[in-house]
């Protein structure tokens, strides 16, 4: 999901750079980010730069459409620009909304896992904090405050639990369907499996856990 391929992880060849240069517009990247976010069980890194650029493009396009309307440009042209704009806005909204849903669902888990917490944007962190506050208050008022003192935690079943066993977590062993743009070669699923050959443009159903690093470095896309 890197735009400048230089900062991507190793394994990118010059041909891939060339390919990504000619084929990846921000619209394309946003679409991929949306698809990955929708299909991944876990929250992914917030695509800050991409979202920022998309927002600016949307704003710019809104101004352009407004200008067109004022200048009496052919309504057909205006409506086509508007459609393009609507499509981008839909992607952006759906991307953000998918993330909010995941945050809401796994908020306690995200809060206590630094790696995940750092994947959120500033606004998302604020949302998560409010979400936590509300959830704690709600659980406390409706149930926990009425229970004996060793059962009052919203993270543990009882004070004898060693771990936080009441925190919903995404299941990383969920299978996902993914596709790679390039041949990735033999890929070790996990230590008890034989390697799987990942060919370009073929679909595979694989456990999310085993391809997680590839998703995070943008080498494989979820579909």
């Amino acid at each position: 999901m890197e735009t400048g391929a230089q900062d991507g992880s190793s394994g990118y060849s010059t041909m891939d750079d060339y390919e990504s240069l000619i084929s990846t517009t921000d619209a394309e990247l946003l679409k991929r980010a949306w698809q990955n976010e929708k299909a991944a069980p876990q929250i992914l890194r917030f695509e800050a730069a991409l979202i920022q650029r998309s927002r600016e493009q949307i704003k710019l396009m809104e101004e352009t459409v407004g200008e067109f309307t004022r200048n009496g440009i052919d309504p057909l042209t205006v409506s086509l620009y508007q459609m393009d704009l609507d499509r981008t806005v839909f992607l952006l909204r759906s991307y953000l909304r998918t993330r909010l849903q995941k945050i809401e669902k796994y908020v306690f888990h995200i809060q206590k896992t630094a790696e995940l917490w750092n994947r959120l944007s500033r606004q998302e962190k604020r949302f998560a904090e409010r979400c936590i506050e509300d959830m704690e208050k709600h659980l406390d008022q409706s149930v926990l405050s009425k229970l004996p003192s060793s059962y009052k935690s919203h993270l543990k079943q009882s004070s004898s639990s060693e771990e936080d066993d009441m925190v919903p977590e995404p299941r990383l062993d969920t299978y996902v369907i993914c596709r790679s743009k390039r041949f990735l070669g033999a890929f070790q699923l996990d230590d008890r499996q034989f390697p799987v050959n990942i060919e370009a443009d073929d679909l595979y159903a694989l456990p999310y856990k085993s391809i997680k690093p590839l998703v995070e470095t943008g080498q494989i896309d979820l579909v």
Partner: protein
Amino acid sequence: MASQADAHAATFSAAELEFLAEDELIEIVPNMRMDPLNLICGDFGPFRPQIATQVPVWLAVALKRRGKCTIRPPDWMSVEKLTQVLEAERDAEKFQPLPFHYVEISRLLFDHARDDIPDIYMVRSLIEDIKDVRFHKIGTGLEIISRERTYALRLKNLSAMEANIVRPFVTRALQTFYKLNSPDMIQESDSVSNRQPQTANRGPRRQLKDR
């Protein structure tokens, strides 16, 4: 709070898949003049009467609905090509290569550009037949997952819509097998002596099934 069940719900809705398919390029022949469009998703045009140009499907459909162009159906949508695909699809066990969004694109064109597709009835019924044969194959393919231990599945040439439809079942089935094969699970099952003789299947047969 969060239940596991909804994690397995279809990831994309049919409408969302159609949305994705609408970004695929297709050739149109405009019947009007229009300056190039510099859209967020790319630059298209200029549009000149009778001069073919490539645009995304959504743009083609928008122009078509206003009577501003004719759409040139893609090569794979000809009776000749589809007949070949259908025959090959029936003969071979493997899936024939078709565009990733063939279901959605053909549907969009049937809905909005009927008069631009030669032999539309033929084309339509061929695509329906191909879809049926493929879905039947998917069904029989799924039986293989249940007969043999499978950990990773290669879904060669499966289209977006097909993958999305089998997703809930396939991902769940594979996940269950994966879990059952976890080392502690196997120890447990091996200690039960009167189990079905499954040892034959536990060998190193990890090659992927082409589906």
